[in-house]
């Protein structure tokens, strides 16, 4: 158990190191110069002026030195300042983290809460009439583009309930009801594919669990069907379910990038897209590093949880 944990931690460190190199290298390879973009198309630009700004931003150093400067600063908790606004990057990210966090958590929660009964239903309907419909429905749920769904929902809702305040974002602390009200639609659009995915996963793991020999043993014991489902099958089926929740975090972040755009939510996705367009290197590096590391961390945690709920791994 401890060794497993240690191994996972080593892997984690390697991966995060790799991620940091990739993030840095990637961003620096993006063509287009921060300074040129910063000065805009209409500006009077002299080479000296560009050089001066480059020096100020530390962009004149060789790339590996820039990387070491960056990493050593990051390790000291200093992510630098945003090129454009001069604000500390941490602060900028801090503003954007909450909406995304809220949105993704809400979506994840919705997905999980709905996926479990749906998955059970789908497993139960196996072999009966209507299965094809439920199956097809779940595939639609999985493949409907969330942003398109979002737009259609906005379109429909604006005709059905035009006065509903559902756009934009207000912090939960200022207006809890307004906050939830505005997040419900995007969270739903975002959660639909995940819900479908999880429900389908649960269905197949449940069906698989129901085929296992130990279910037969339970039936031979005279355990009633409901109890078999909940005590025996579901508890086994939920293990892969939990692991895939970690993977879902990735889908969620991907989906959030687009959904934030549609619903005007000031989250990390918008921050990152904006930062790319502006070549705001420090901001972009920090934001992507944050997202990837948290994704890696989530999966690490899920792995730990997995270890905890599956007694077989503890050995």
């Amino acid at each position, binding site marked *: 158990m401890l060794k497993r944990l240690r191994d996972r931690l080593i892997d984690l460190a390697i991966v995060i190191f790799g991620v940091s190199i990739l993030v840095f290298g990637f961003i620096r390879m993006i063509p287009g110069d921060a300074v040129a*973009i910063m000065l805009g*198309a209409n500006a009077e*630009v002299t080479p000296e002026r560009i050089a001066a700004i480059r020096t100020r931003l530390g962009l004149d150093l060789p790339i590996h030195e820039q990387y070491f400067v960056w990493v050593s600063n990051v390790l000291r908790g200093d992510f630098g300042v945003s090129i*454009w606004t001069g604000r500390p990057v941490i602060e900028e990210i801090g503003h954007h983290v909450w909406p995304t966090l809220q949105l993704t958590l809400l979506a994840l929660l919705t997905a999980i809460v709905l996926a479990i009964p749906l998955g059970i239903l789908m497993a139960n309907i196996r072999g009966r009439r209507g299965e094809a419909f439920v199956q097809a429905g779940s595939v639609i749920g999985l493949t409907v583009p969330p942003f398109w769904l979002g737009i259609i929902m906005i379109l429909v809702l604006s005709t059905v309930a035009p*006065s509903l*305040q559902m756009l934009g974002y207000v912090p939960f602390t200022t207006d809890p009801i307004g906050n939830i009200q505005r997040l419900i639609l995007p969270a739903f659009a975002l959660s639909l594919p995940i819900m479908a995915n999880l429900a389908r996963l649960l269905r197949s793991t449940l069906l698989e669990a129901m085929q296992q020999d130990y279910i037969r043993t339970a039936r031979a014991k005279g355990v009633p069907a409901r109890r078999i489902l909940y005590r025996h099958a579901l508890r086994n089926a939920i293990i892969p379910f939990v692991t895939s929740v970690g993977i879902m975090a990735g889908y969620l972040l991907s989906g959030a990038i687009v959904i934030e755009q549609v*619903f005007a939510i*000031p989250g990390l996705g918008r921050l990152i897209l904006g930062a790319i*367009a*502006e070549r705001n290197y420090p901001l972009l590096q920090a934001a992507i590093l944050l997202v990837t590391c948290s994704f890696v961390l989530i999966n690490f945690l899920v792995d730990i949880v997995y270890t905890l709920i599956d007694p077989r791994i503890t050995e």
Partner: protein
Amino acid sequence: APLQVAVEQSPSGLDPHIVTAFSSFQIIDGTIYEGLTALDNDLNIVPGLASEWQISDDKTTYTFTLREGVTFHGGDAMTSADVVASLNRVLAENTGSPLASRLAAVDSIETPDDSTVVLNLSAPSAPLLSSLTSIAIVPAKYEDDTDSLQRAPDGTGPFKFVSWQPDVAITLEANADYWDEERPALEGVVFNIVPEAATRQVGLNSGQYQMLPNIDGVMAQQFQGAGGVQLEETLELAYSLIGINVSRPPFDNAKVREAINYAINRDDIVAAALFGAGVPGGPLSPALTNYALPLEEFGCFTPSADKARALLEEAGIETPIEATLLVLPRDSTKGIAQVVQQQLAAIGIDLELDIPEIGQFVQNWRNSEFDMFVSLNSGTIEPDDYFYRTFRTGGSTNVFKYSNETLDALLDAGREETDTAKRQEIYADAQRELACQGPAAFLTYGQLYTAMRDNVDGYSISPTRSMRSLGGTSVTE
């Protein structure tokens, strides 16, 4: 309650001397900041923070008298020292202000007393007064500070900056100490940042937002007939054009450029790419009624594929010509690019569209790495400001690598000439020089709209996209 405005883009900063983008400009210009002079909505120069000014006979000395009782939002009174500091700030290398060139003619600045500022010019400069409209006066303490104003602007305008939640909203409140008798009627203004067009639209329809400023024809049309929404419109200064790299054959040949002009049907572009909301235009915006020549003056603005082909033949150029069109990644320019692509194909110019991401576009554009480009540029009210740096040999944004001695002479003269009639003459010649054989095919000027709820009163749209009339706007319940 404050006025809820929805805008597309988050500003990248709010320092009036640094930012260039419309997204920043429309929020701060005339609302938070004011210049010594100002523009009314008909583009006339009117007094701003300077209540009056005298111009010496040799046109090289401008004496401005500052308005009494003007205070910055921070509470300090505005004095001539602030004005000097502001101008110096713009000129300082360290600031990197794109406005610096507009003060190129200023030789020295004097402040005889707290309420007088004297500008000594090295040579007469016709555009000076209009240039000053865009140079905001900020407190002197920011002279060497290039960071603070980006986040927390401090001006003299009718609205005070309250807060900026990145990607959410920028909130302004009415300036109770505003110098004008007429204080703003609004309690404040909230600029909500809403990137998705459909979302902004729904928001206005539902009343969550009360104003969508400076929108294009496509969106405006979708409000037509919608209950509870009114539209304000004006022709804007921003223009779209096809730029041509004259250092690359066959575009070094003026006949080829003229052929391109003949091949383009500007009415179709207006209809398709601008959804009918706009007008064809030459080198200057038709909104500049003083200067702009009527289109009939430019023969090549009457589309004719035959003429175009004849010109190509005359030039001895083999078709098809293959070229790449660098496209500014915006919906309207993408639309224009596609229409132009089809139109030029008819005369044997095969364009390949290259639609890079914005950063790449700017880089390629700046380094003249294109055969042709299509972009949308903000215009100015002063022809010199635009023509000189764009088309004069060696001009700072002469990415076309264009060089025309006749034009250079005209532009030099126009810059120093202060007599309006003569200037009109000079710029008429310049327009003729540029229209058909210049390094660009001038295409269209869009119609600019502002959509508001019916109960918003007193707002009038400006061709420059400035929202300064918010000061006189009110909302009836």
